[in-house]
């Protein structure tokens, strides 16, 4: 089994005619994802990689019965693109775009609280259920189907940890990138809750980083609600306070909250072992299985 996406998921790609949109649509199709439509204003009637393009998400959903969207729209227009997706009753919207202004995301976040759609991201690599579907930019070849769930704030760190798992023959149920921005749709807690409910997920990897308090909240959730064992990794131990380390969310305030230390401490207190290296995370998972 899996969470959030499987081989029934029907995908519309917003921004399918752009360079990234086109390239990754081809990659997703090659992986076996049901990409059923594209949506680009003014490009309706065209085809990309054999996929029909519509002018609006609404048309794409109505004509092709899509239930998920992946957003490859440039940052200046991406907030609007997510609003458009949220107005069409999709089950899932995956926003890949990096660099959406935070205040645009605050408005999106407000709308999100009024609808039933799940948003993943923005600034995330997407989601993959190995062997079934991938929505986003993750390199499909490093993933294997199996019994470990993975949720991460960082794309490339996800790849690193997954390759450490796959090399040992440990496959994944679903891997989710939730994104590194200060305001995101799906949180660690949302993903952990879904993995806990998934009977095929026997262990979970959670990759966090400095900034915010999402990991601390996740630690609390794990202690109170999870039987499935979780192993963690926290990036940014060496980050100086006050500096933004690439991800907009990865900034430590001077007062000691949001540091790697506080996150690792909270996870350890919740019974979650935290690896010093990505490889050590795989060691912990191996111990669980």
């Amino acid at each position, binding site marked *: 089994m899996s969470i959030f996406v499987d081989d029934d998921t029907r995908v519309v790609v917003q921004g399918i005619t752009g360079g990234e949109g086109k390239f990754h649509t081809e990659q997703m199709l090659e992986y076996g994802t049901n990409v059923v439509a594209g949506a680009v204003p003014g490009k309706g009637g065209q085809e990309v990689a054999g996929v029909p393009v519509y002018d609006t998400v609404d048309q794409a959903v109505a004509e092709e019965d899509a239930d998920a969207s992946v957003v490859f729209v440039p940052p200046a227009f991406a907030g609007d693109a997510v609003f458009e997706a949220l107005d069409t009753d999709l089950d899932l919207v995956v926003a890949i775009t990096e660099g*959406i202004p935070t*205040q645009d995301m605050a408005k999106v976040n407000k709308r999100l609280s009024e609808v039933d759609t799940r948003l993943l991201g923005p600034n995330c690599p997407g989601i993959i259920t190995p062997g079934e579907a991938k929505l986003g930019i993750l390199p499909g070849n490093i993933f294997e189907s199996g019994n470990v769930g993975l949720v991460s704030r960082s*794309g490339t760190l996800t790849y690193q940890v997954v390759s450490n798992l796959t090399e040992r023959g440990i496959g994944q149920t679903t891997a989710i990138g939730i994104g590194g921005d*200060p305001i995101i749709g799906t949180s660690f807690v949302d993903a952990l809750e879904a993995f806990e409910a998934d009977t095929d997920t026997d262990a979970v990897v959670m990759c966090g980083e400095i900034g915010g308090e999402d990991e601390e909240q996740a630690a609390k959730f794990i202690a109170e609600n999870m039987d499935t064992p979780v192993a963690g990794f926290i*990036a940014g131990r*060496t980050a100086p306070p006050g500096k933004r380390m690439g991800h*907009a969310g990865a900034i430590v305030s001077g*007062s000691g909250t949001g540091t790697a230390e506080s996150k690792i401490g909270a996870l350890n207190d919740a019974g979650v072992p935290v690896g010093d290296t990505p490889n050590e995370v795989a060691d912990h998972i191996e111990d669980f299985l």
Partner: protein
Amino acid sequence: MRLHEYQAKQVFADAGIPTPDSRLASTVEEVMDAVDDIGYPAAIKAQVHVGGRGKAGGIKIATSEEEAREAAESIIGMDLKGYEVDKVLVEAGVDFENELYVGITMDRGEGEPVAMVSTEGGVDIESVAEETPEKIAREHIDPAFGLHPYQARKVVFEAGIPKDVAMDVASILSTLYDLYESKDASEVEINPVMITSDREVVAADAVMNIDEDALFRQPELAEMEDEAAGDELEAKANEYGFDYVRLSGNVGIIGNGAGLVMTTLDLVDYYGGAPANFLDIGGGAKAERVTQALDMVFADENVDSVVFNIFGGITRGDEVAKGINEALEQFDEIPKPVVVRLAGTNAEEGMEILNKDLVQVEGTLEDAVQRAVKNAEEVTQ
């Protein structure tokens, strides 16, 4: 992106927030001309991105020509926590009775902006928030509607602001929110708002941080960025458009994706080395970006060794390898040893392209980091 006090004050003043009369100066003579215009007492304030400027000797009050000259001579050119002071703001001193705090920032946990008001102004507000949080009144703002006037009044009254100036403070708060929204700020703050003996309110300081992701629609503020840049290498990174942070170690680090680059830094530290920088070449980087990244890291004289850690997803290993070759083939002798680790999309193609006479190649993240740390150790021994 953080504005200097004088830049933020100009933005605030243009929006109608009362600020003291002031001039920017970069020489002692300019300071003397400014105090001639403004009169005494005058505050002379270093314009650098450092907290606690006052305590560090970066702010002085002058009540005479002699004091003004002394203050100017001691502040201009001084080293303030690693930043050289090349500009000061000369500002009319305010005769005040009370100091207040007002600010707006994003509460990321709630995903909403929050307005904060306190009678405890003129002090380190983070300590107030930590030790006596009840002394700061807070009001969350629906980003779809903005700050309603009643909310501004509510938070001001809740904070216990004296009634005769409460409406003026509420009005400043409303203006601050308009600026926060229209200028894509991540933080706006006045600490302190001074209440004068004539019961007028004046912004005696100004903090404004802008969301860097929104600079594309804030061209006027983007122009201020050059002046606001501190470190020379960080300014160069701005020019190239890299996410870059300079650190104090000697192992240069280049990678793709913020989380993986941070992890590489952490591993350098874990294996006994010290990272010289954070440098994320970003997603989908082409050969030219890689060349620029190497140029950045080589330009840092503290760097003794370099490690490349690329896990391709959207980024392709062959493009990265081409960039590394192009950058290194320019040199008769490679300035610092470079260790490369390539994985993910097109990594195999990349490994075939990579000129192995110029770099050291490692198969895993751990091996690459350990080798780079060892390279750096050999230089320093």
